[in-house]
């Protein structure tokens, strides 16, 4: 980032290549809507370019970047609530077994490797997405930042503007809530896989 501040455009390209995917996943999990996530992602990087002069080296670039992304996500969520647009859960409407609209989980490409794994993912991912979306926003953002973006709790506290203890407290509540939700949905953590995690 300092190189980009000094006028090196290639440094910015390197930053984008390195952080684009985790930032996009954070935005995607936060907003729950792929097209809105793309808009917020683009807006985030534009804001990085515009505010490059304001960047202070004392802060981690990732912290600064996720702070921008998180604030834009919050703004987008507010605008969306004002418009009363359909949320991630809205298309589901009826019972879990009923025909659902295209939610986040269904719209995402299948990253499985084999047919069996692909079938399993196709079944479990909507449930996971639904469980994640059911979390309160402040718990969801902490879980996503830690689980998918790999941001330490201390830095999450900076991004969200609360204390580290509050972050950990929210994380505990998020894990408990997800565990309950998975149990309700009939998804067992042991069945979910082989013990691997995303970013941990």
């Amino acid at each position, binding site marked *: 980032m300092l190189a980009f501040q000094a006028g090196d455009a290639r440094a910015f390209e390197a930053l984008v290549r390195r952080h684009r995917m*985790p930032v996009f996943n954070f935005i995607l999990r936060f907003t729950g809507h792929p097209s809105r996530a793309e808009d917020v992602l683009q807006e985030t990087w534009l804001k990085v370019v515009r505010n*490059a002069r304001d960047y202070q080296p004392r802060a981690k670039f990732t912290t600064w970047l996720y702070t921008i992304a998180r604030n834009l996500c919050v703004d987008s969520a507010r605008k969306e609530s004002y418009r009363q647009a359909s949320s991630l859960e809205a298309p589901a409407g009826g019972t879990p077994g009923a025909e659902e609209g295209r939610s986040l989980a269904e719209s995402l490409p299948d990253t499985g490797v084999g047919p069996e794994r692909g079938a399993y993912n196709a079944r479990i991912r909507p449930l996971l997405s639904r469980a994640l979306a059911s979390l309160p926003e402040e718990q969801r953002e902490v879980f996503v930042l830690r689980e998918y973006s790999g941001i330490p*709790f201390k830095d999450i506290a900076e991004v969200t503007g609360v204390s580290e203890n509050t972050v950990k407290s929210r994380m505990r509540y998020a*894990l408990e809530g997800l*565990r309950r939700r998975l149990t309700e949905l009939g998804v067992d953590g042991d069945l979910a896989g082989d013990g691997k995690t995303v970013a941990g």
Partner: protein
Amino acid sequence: MKPQNPHAHEDRLLDFAYGELSPQDTRAVQSHLEGCPKCSEALASIRGVRSAFSQLGMEPAPEAGLESLLAYAQQSVRHNAQAPSPKQSLWRRLTVPVMGIAAVSVFGLVTLRVNERVNLQPEFSAQLQKTAAPVAETALPPSAELALPSAPPAAGAAAEPQPSRARREQDWDVLESKKKMEKGNWAKVSRGSLPAAKAKEAQVPREDEGESLAMAADDAFAPPPPAPAATAEPMPAQPEAAAAKPAPYERDEAYGAAAPSGALRLSESRSRRSKGKDMEIGAGPSKQAPSETERSQQATVARQDGKRVLEASLLREALADGATGEERWSLLARLCDAEFALGRREAAIEACSLVLKEAPGSPAGLQARRRLAQEAPSVLPAQPGTGSAAPAPAP
């Protein structure tokens, strides 16, 4: 493991599960987990949720908009390279308005001063002439001046002629000092409140008549007392005095640059006069050189320059210095003319009447008569041989 709060176990388990503990703390937690089934169960729950949500995986970021974003970044870099640095921008943001205000203020002040000078210069000159007359009339009663006894003729003394340029400089300096004094008074007069001090000063007659101008110059510049060698006109037969006599400009230099030549000259004449009086009382006829001729010449120059107030003052001083005979009558006639020009009618009539009384047939007397006939025919005394006679004012 000694928790500080009810959730300390879970916080440390979170840090342990996400690998944020130091190696030492990691070993401590591991050893604790071996003997604590509750913490082991909590950790298993955390790991189960993480395992489940790992199925969502990381989604690839869309490529749309990447090229335009990089182009925008390059454009921004070029723009920033041309723009000033943030510190300069902030500095300019602070200084530019201040400098602008200062420049406007200076311009406004200069404009005001220029307008003031341009507009007031003619008024100033006119007011100087108008106000000088009443002040002089109040401070210097003409009758008192003209009633002075004629100064004894300074035998063997000759006036030292001054170079014309030096005389003009002296006159200019004196007039400038007078302007400075009167300018201050005008501000008060224009407000309609003449200060008591000024009024008192105007009512008290001067001890030495005709020296108002010289006193003004002296007060303004405060020159040191003139040296005797500078005041005494050396006689040709006195080599020591001749050796001590400096050139006119050398005298100014001897008093320093702060002593204007005009002030010096008038101070010299005043000092000379007082010294002459002392000599009169004590040592009898002295080497004091009369200065009435010099003053007469200065008055001529003042008239040529249009400085009638100065001319009148110099003529009075010349008369007070003891001019006699033709020279006295000529001075009186010129004083009459100057006073009429200044609008001081009584003083003018008095001067003309003196000439007519002392030497009605002289050229100065004829000039005075003509002047009176023009300005005040009612006070003109009867000509010899004619029946009509107007009473002349008392001298």
